[in-house]
């Protein structure tokens, strides 16, 4: 856990006071909706189709049980008893009233939660691998760097009115679970030939209307330079990116227009001026931040305790869940447990207030009071003793978050779409719900292996459809909802954009088409463990296209 001190608490409290004043001015009519808009957008408040929506940051996806209970409380008291976890380690409340917002913010602030960096043209909530600090394949805890960057960019005097929103992700593991290549800046912590750790800096990734995979502009940046280098990138971006066209103002367009090399030269030139200034990181500052990440006092335990092996033999459901939702931990005898927020027929990423409370209680019992939020819209318990897994499984099952579909076809990522979002062209959640019904057979899902479906309700791509193994994008055709399907995108360390399957299909057909695609894969794969993306890579989309459009 990251422990807030009086600085953090003071800032958040002052933020609430400011927002209360701004809401007061809006209610009294002193501010028009137009004038209020940029102010609410600096606090995570959006105006959606039916109501205001409040987006709360969960920096680097780490929550304490107390914070999760506070989210449950806000859902219960000010909303309709639930919250929606997004793909960027935020939670959204969809039905909040304007006059309740200051009180809701004050309640959240009492647990160290806030809406800073969740909206507006600033540096957004900095995301990381949701398993940071416990993943066996990481070289260090990426959250320390995310926290340093979070602090540096919060209410930044120069970068709070950028051309557009700006997203940074950090990973420190061999496997990229933070999708750094589809961020404005991706930072990949790795070890160089001399054994030192530093960052590969990637820029200009992003999805939306013009998707790009990020370009590497610096293979190795010493850690002391990370703030100054990011500052240099932001300064170049702030001054030179386009501001005349909303769709061309992200850094990916600037990098593309200038070319990655010319962009890198601008950044280097700027950086030379500031690299040895106040932003050069003092090891004592880093140590101070690192010291406020607390790790549990793990017990000395062995892997695979007998109670586990016994139940695996005795109970097939338990074994299936364990194989699917439980991952290796750095520390022997412990495990990382993913809680699926993708039950059959559910809206991806939604959790009710009662579920959040129950999960918080279980986290206290079994995960040292800590919960993680991943970009896959699932939760995780990062510190579970393996011997507790049978008990925990029963308890999670009772809460409805033990569906063993993590990373499988029914673990669908979807944006809110036309059910909530004022920008949407088409529904996303009902498509996801229908697909979870079509693929309810968990044996089939297991047989299909890793298969990520991502759904966005419009070209803004909040559901990351470009990088879904099967991507589904809602478009509008003559006032009706249609969907474009892409195949074999991926968001990991080998990130790639998906390839279009063919003409868009109407709402009523989209689940059928996805079923066809999956059936085609089962026939076309070379061997049972050739994954979906491997098959598409090997044979291309053509055979899938033929089959789908022949039948429809």
């Amino acid at each position, binding site marked *: 856990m990251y422990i807030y*001190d009086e*600085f*953090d608490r*003071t*800032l958040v409290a*002052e933020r609430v*006071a*400011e927002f209360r004043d*701004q809401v007061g001015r809006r209610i009294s009519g002193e501010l028009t909706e137009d*004038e209020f808009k*940029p*102010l609410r957008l600096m606090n995570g408040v959006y105006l959606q189709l039916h109501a205001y929506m409040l987006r709360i940051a969960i920096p680097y996806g780490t929550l304490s049980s107390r914070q999760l209970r506070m989210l449950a409380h806000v859902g219960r008291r000010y909303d309709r008893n639930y919250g929606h976890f997004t793909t960027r380690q935020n939670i959204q409340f969809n039905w909040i009233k304007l006059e309740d917002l200051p009180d809701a913010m004050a309640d959240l602030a009492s647990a160290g939660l806030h809406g800073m960096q969740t909206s507006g*043209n600033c540096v957004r909530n900095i995301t990381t691998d949701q398993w940071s600090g416990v993943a066996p394949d990481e070289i260090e805890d990426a959250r320390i760097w995310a926290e340093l960057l979070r*602090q*540096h*960019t*919060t*209410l*930044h*005097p*120069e*970068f*709070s*009115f*950028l051309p557009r929103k700006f997203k940074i992700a950090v990973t420190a593991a061999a496997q990229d679970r933070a999708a750094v290549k589809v961020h404005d800046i991706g930072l990949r912590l790795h070890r160089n030939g001399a054994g030192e750790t530093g960052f590969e800096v990637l820029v200009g990734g992003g999805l939306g209307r013009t998707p790009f995979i990020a370009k590497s502009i610096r293979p190795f940046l010493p850690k002391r330079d990370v703030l100054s280098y990011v500052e240099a990138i932001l*300064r170049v971006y*702030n*001054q030179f990116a386009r*501001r005349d066209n909303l769709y061309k103002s992200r850094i990916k367009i600037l990098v593309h227009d200038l070319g990655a090399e010319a962009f890198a030269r601008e950044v280097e030139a700027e950086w030379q*001026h500031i690299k040895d200034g*106040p932003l*050069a990181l*003092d090891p*004592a*500052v880093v140590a*101070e*931040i690192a010291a406020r990440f607390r790790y549990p006092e793990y017990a000395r335990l062995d892997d695979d305790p007998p109670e586990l092996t016994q139940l695996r033999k005795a109970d097939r459901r338990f074994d299936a869940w364990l194989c699917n939702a439980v991952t290796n931990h750095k520390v022997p005898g412990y495990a990382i447990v993913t809680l699926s927020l993708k039950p059959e027929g559910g809206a991806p990423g939604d959790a009710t207030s009662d579920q959040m409370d129950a999960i918080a209680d279980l986290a206290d019992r079994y995960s040292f009071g800590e919960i993680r939020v991943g970009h896959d819209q699932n939760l995780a318990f990062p510190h579970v003793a393996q011997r507790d897994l049978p008990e925990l499984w029963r308890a999670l099952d009772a809460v409805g978050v033990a569906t063993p579909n993590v990373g499988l076809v029914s673990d669908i990522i979807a944006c809110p779409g036309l059910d909530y979002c004022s920008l949407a062209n088409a529904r996303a959640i009902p498509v996801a719900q229908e697909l979870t019904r079509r693929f309810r057979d968990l044996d089939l899902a297991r047989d299909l292996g890793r298969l990520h479906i991502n759904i966005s309700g419009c070209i803004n791509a909040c559901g990351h459809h470009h990088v879904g193994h099967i991507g589904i994008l809602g478009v509008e055709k003559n006032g009706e909802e249609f969907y474009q399907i892409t195949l074999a995108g991926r968001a990991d360390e080998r990130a790639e954009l998906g390839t279009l399957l063919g003409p868009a299909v109407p709402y009523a057909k989209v689940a059928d088409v996805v079923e066809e695609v999956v059936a085609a894969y089962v026939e076309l794969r070379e061997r049972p463990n050739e994954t979906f993306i491997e098959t598409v890579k090997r044979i291309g989309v053509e055979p899938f296209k033929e089959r789908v459009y022949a039948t429809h």
Partner: protein
Amino acid sequence: MPLIKNGRVVADRYVHVLDDAPPPDGIPVIIPAARFLADAAEILHHDASVGVAWPNDRRVAELAPYLDRLALVALVFPTFKDGRAYSQARLLRERYGFRGELRATGQILRDQFMFLVRAGFDVLDVAKPGDVDAFPSALKRYTVFYQAAGEGRTSAARLRLARSSVPITRGPEFATSSELGASLAGRVSR
């Protein structure tokens, strides 16, 4: 529009000189960037203070050779959403050491006051007269900041270290943010 300087509403001493008019004798002037650059030597002979109105899409490095002879640089925010001049302000203050008047013009609204002062502006040309009264509270709203910037505050990281008495090995010596906040707020009167 009212000008706020050091927390006080002040009259504008300067006149804006349009592109071909001669600078009026003995009166401080603000000259558009293009004209200034075309004729800097001549203009700098003016017998009163000279300021330049600099657009937000031109590199301030071009002004660097003249900064020690300029009394004022006016930067512009065509809309409050266009934040390019924040970078220009920090560069002028922190890189080029400009110590003259740095004026924020354009759509300057009260909810930007804090950002502007922190970026190094000392004079704000406020768009809505009603926002003037909000200046003291806008500056007092926050007492801590995570990052140091142009106005010389201490970052939270440094204050933390100072508090935990770990020796500080690098970084400028600044007043604490609460001292600065108090002195800024104390200076505000009309």
